[in-house]
């Protein structure tokens, strides 16, 4: 190794040093520990006791585990495609040279910026069955009032509606994608006699597919990690109709101190996310179009 190379190696390690320490202490060690703990009975206060795969087999016989998986899956399957479509629709509306468009962009993006407990409380009040804004709107549309979060049949749907309020985050990314679709492609398609829908279907959509792909993966990962809304707004109820996976995991860990069980749940979650992401990646060859090393000009 030449002197120059050796010096660069040392420098490389020096620059990466904080990360290496961080990786070891906050990722690698905890990850290994988590895997070990998932095969133990462990309550933090007494030393862990090895119990083999019992936590994992228990999971399969735990109806609440299946319930939490079901709730999360429904939220994901219904919410993610709705969010993707709505985000794209709004982005297309926004992608025109109109006066005052920046104001609209701000309004649409704002809900994605504010999140957390305050917004969760706001939506509890919006979903109030007696005096909430939700039923004011339904009444205005001539529809019967809903029980929203208070009824098991509508609680999950209410949370999905709330999640759609935040589509602005995805919208901004679509917008960047839309603005990097070369104008000459649209013009060429027009000359060939393509109408608006055909241009959307055969020009915009393929050119945008990498962005859709990105938003899809982020959407899936996000929906499997829902916690704050469920904890603050419904605490899993009524009758476990909003018992999200991470909420149940949190209860096992920090209410019942069943750390082994919670760790096993975490690994199952990781496996599910990994599997879904791989699946989306595999399928992406069929529908995602990459145009070489094209650089967007934002």
């Amino acid at each position, binding site marked *: 190794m030449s002197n120059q190379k050796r010096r*660069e*190696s040392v*420098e*490389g390690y020096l*620059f*990466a040093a*904080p*990360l290496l*320490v*961080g*990786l070891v*202490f*906050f990722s690698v060690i*905890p*990850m290994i*520990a*988590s895997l070990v*703990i998932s095969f133990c009975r462990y309550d*933090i206060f007494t030393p862990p006791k090895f119990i083999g795969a019992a936590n994992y087999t228990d999971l399969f016989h735990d109806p609440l585990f299946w319930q939490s998986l079901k709730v999360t899956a429904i939220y994901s399957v219904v919410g993610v495609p709705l969010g993707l479509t709505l985000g794209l629709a*709004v982005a297309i*509306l926004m992608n025109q040279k*109109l006066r005052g468009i920046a104001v*609209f962009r701000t*309004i*649409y*993006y*704002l809900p*994605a*910026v*504010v*999140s*957390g*407990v*305050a917004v969760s*409380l*706001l939506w509890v*009040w*919006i979903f109030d069955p*007696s*005096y909430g*804004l939700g*039923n004011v709107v339904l*009444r205005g549309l001539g529809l019967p009032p809903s029980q929203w979060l208070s009824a098991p049949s509508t609680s999950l749907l209410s949370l999905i509606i709330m999640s759609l*309020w935040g589509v*602005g985050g995805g919208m901004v*990314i679509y*917008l*960047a994608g839309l603005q990097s679709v070369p104008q000459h492609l649209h013009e060429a398609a027009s000359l060939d006699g393509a109408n608006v829908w055909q241009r959307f279907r055969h020009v915009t959509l393929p050119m945008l597919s990498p962005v859709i792909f990105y938003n899809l993966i982020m959407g899936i990962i996000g929906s499997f*990690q829902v916690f*704050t809304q469920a904890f*603050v707004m419904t605490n899993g109820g009524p009758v476990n109709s909003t018992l999200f996976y991470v909420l149940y995991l949190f209860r096992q860990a*920090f209410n019942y101190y069943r*750390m082994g069980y*919670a760790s096993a*749940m*975490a690994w199952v*979650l*990781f496996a599910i*996310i990994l599997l879904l*992401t791989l699946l989306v990646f595999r399928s992406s060859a069929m529908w995602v179009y990459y145009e070489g090393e094209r650089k967007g000009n934002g």
Partner: protein
Amino acid sequence: MSVNSASHSKTQSIARAGTYTLLIIFSAVFFFPFLWLVSTSVKPDSQIMVMPPKWIPNPFMWSNYSKGLTFVPFLSYLRNTLIICSANVVGVLISCPLVAYGLSVIPWKGRDVLFYVILSTMMLPFQVVMVPLFAIFTKLGWIDTFLPLTVPAFLGNAFFIFLLRQFFMTIPKDLLDAAKIDGCSDFQTYRQVVLPLAKPVLATVALFTFMGAWNDFLGPLIYLFNQDKYTLSMGLAMFSSQYGSYWGMLMAVSTVVTVPIIVLFFFTQRTFIQGITLTGIKG
């Protein structure tokens, strides 16, 4: 030609009117919850439980704010939140660009392996490491302090390192070579050439970090027990579990917690959206 363009501009103006209509309808849908928040926050109790609702209350109940903010040690929550937020911003700004530079500009053995390790930790859900981290922090005696919520930021954040690395890769090599020829060491090149160029991305990183820490709930919920240590989101959650039906007061406090973020967003919007479009990553 002129006839053609006239009819063309007519369909165009119809399309434009249609677009505006849709944009305004959507805006209303997106904006109404905010109006509802602010409107409720200044309502007297007697006007909250009315159907149909009154959007503009009479009289304005400003005391919802003073009462709400004194019911709980709001200032102490605010102080705690600001301490955690600023420590995170400082930590991330020190560590992430440094690491990203090491991972993009300097060629060294094992660099790409490390990069892929970082990418894979981005896939790792926090829940996997949550339990062992809690055990480690308990052993270190860090529970019920701000340390678990701030120290990790000083050791890098996979997401932001990735973001910054992607940006550093676009810096022309000639520029860096020129600095080298002028006698800059790697660290000098980093400080005097790369960092100034990266200002917009760094601003984005700082903003996302601040907002993430401001809104974080799971972290404080796990690590903080004593009420003196609570953050705004923790305090707000506790407040609502105790006074859940005082909607006026609750919305007043929620407004106070939300407004700083909105103001921050308004002033930094350009940086914010530039950052996102530059990198394709949302908050």
